């Protein structure tokens, strides 16, 4: 009985991905948490676009969660046609752990395969009672900072690297200064949530902390759509150029016969309509035309690239987030 059950469950999942006879095609987009609203919009628009140009019905399923957890699901067999994750490192793992796509996946689409970008900004309470303007304010003794745990959250890794990078690249910055800065910063963090949405809840609903480090799109979602007149966005002078990448999962699309539509779907993200939708959801568009139209929505700030801050993801991971890395040393038991 349980065996029969297992077999029937396995059977179900096998047949669900194949193209049903009526010519309808189904794509699975495995993404991370803050893109939920964006892709709801984009998927509907792309389905319309695909039906109009190719005359084929397409239905796109979305799966959201922590970026690393999502990548692991795909490695372990979730048959994603495309992944749209928070970090290139998570997509790299699809190659390294399971050979689901080639090593040079990031060169296959324009702009490092990131059709939209984001950055890390501050959210403070209404009226900015602690007068938080820039990074230096975050390490003041009277300020508490909310950020998720870089070990479990892709967004938190961007937070951490933004903090690290500005201390490293500021006038007179150095590795030692950067290390001292992030140590001081994390001593001001009272709670380490496991994901970005969890940290937002801690800050917004529990009333904990004076400032929240957040994705720019999450910050605007919070101030404009959720907690109107309860929060303000503070744009620091320097932050990081966060590039959430997208990729076709070759192994899966070839087995399912969905390569053409999966590639068109990602290309659509770069189209004018795609860029416009991204901008509406507070992701910074790559298209200069669309960016110009939304210039007032995206405050100017200097954004350091990952290469300037930490080299590449492999090095960032090894230096900062791996076991015994710099982040662990912040919490290492001290002699005192």
């Amino acid at each position: 009985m349980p065996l029969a059950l297992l077999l029937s469950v396995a059977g179900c999942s096998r047949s669900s991905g194949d193209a049903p006879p009526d010519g309808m095609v189904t794509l699975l987009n495995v993404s991370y948490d803050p893109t939920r609203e964006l892709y709801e919009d984009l998927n509907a628009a792309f389905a319309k676009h695909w039906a109009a140009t190719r005359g084929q019905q397409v239905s796109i399923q979305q799966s959201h969660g922590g970026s690393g957890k999502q990548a692991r699901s795909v490695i372990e067999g979730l048959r994603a046609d495309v992944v749209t994750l928070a970090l290139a490192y998570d997509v790299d793992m699809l190659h390294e752990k399971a050979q689901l796509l080639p090593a040079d996946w990031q060169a296959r689409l324009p702009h490092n395969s990131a059709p939209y970008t984001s950055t890390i900004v501050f959210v403070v309470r209404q009226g900015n009672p602690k007068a938080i303007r820039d990074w230096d304010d975050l390490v003041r003794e009277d300020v508490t900072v909310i950020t998720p745990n870089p070990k479990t959250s892709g967004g938190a890794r961007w937070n951490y690297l933004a903090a690290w990078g500005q201390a490293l690249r500021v006038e007179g910055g150095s590795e030692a200064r950067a290390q001292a800065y992030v140590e001081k910063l994390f001593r001001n963090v009272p709670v380490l949530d496991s994901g970005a949405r969890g940290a937002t809840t801690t800050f917004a609903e529990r009333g904990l902390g004076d400032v929240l480090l957040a994705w720019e799109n999450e910050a605007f979602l919070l101030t404009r759509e959720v907690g109107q007149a309860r929060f303000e966005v503070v744009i620091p002078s320097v932050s990081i150029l966060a590039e959430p990448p997208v990729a076709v999962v070759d192994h899966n699309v070839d087995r399912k016969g969905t390569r053409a539509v999966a590639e068109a779907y990602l290309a659509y993200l770069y189209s004018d309509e795609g860029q416009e939708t991204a901008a509406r959801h507070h992701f910074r568009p790559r298209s200069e035309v669309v960016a110009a139209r939304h210039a007032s929505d995206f405050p100017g700030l200097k954004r350091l690239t990952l290469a300037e801050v930490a080299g590449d993801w492999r090095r960032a991971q090894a230096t900062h987030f791996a076991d015994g890395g710099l982040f662990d040393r912040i919490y290492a038991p001290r002699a005192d």
Partner: protein
Amino acid sequence: MSRPTRHRVLPGFRLSLGFSWFYLGLIVLIPLSSLFLRTFSLSWEEFWGTVTTPRALAAYRLSFGASLAAALANVVFGLLVAWVLVRYRFPGRDVLESLVDLPFALPTAVAGLTLTTLFSSKGWYGQYLEALGLKVAYTSVGVAIALTFIGLPFVVRTVQPVLEDIDVDVEEAAATLGASPWQTFRRVLFPALFPALLSGFTLAFARALGEYGSVVFISGNMPLRTEIVPLLIITRLEQYDYAGATAIAIVMLGASFSLLLAVNLLHRWSQRRLEARPGA
């Protein structure tokens, strides 16, 4: 327990036993042994290094300590709730009866979110507790409270049927022989309830050890202070460190299994003592 039964409803002992082994093998043994296979990529030194980092040790202490505290609290208050449900008839009893099961049915993440909202410094309970200098959310106390919440039904539901089987006559008989209420409880009721209490304790304790969803919200997840073992395992997985995650999982598995085995033996021993008692 192992007494042969004369009337067998299920077909044949061998078939039933064979099926039991097959079933448990399929859904428990094979998945767990695959866990062991995963750590084979680690050398013994690497394994030992992974499972004895200060962070891991702090997490074991918190997980086992808070689970123990929660299970003990549930033994005391679960017994009380079971007693009230069995011995009294009162309006609202059905509601109370269903309330007991709620932690079983509720997704633990919802429980965690709700408890955190209540106990955070702006919450209904939290604001007063904090005024008294007691911080619950984001401390080990919060962890123990979440674990108490999810463990409650186990004690109530294991003690209740045993309590129902003990006639009020027994208490009355003890009273007519001059026993005080405390003596009646200690000498008459407690020995009969002990095996059930122990089972309830074990179940609540085991459940708490593996709990993740309700705890991650209220614990604050601070390394070395409020990090539970299941979170540490997830953290390893988030770094694609499968071998490290399973190494810690195996320590948990070994510790939990030995504890459960020990408690089961104790349970068997106390049951035998109970059956051997004259007049029982």
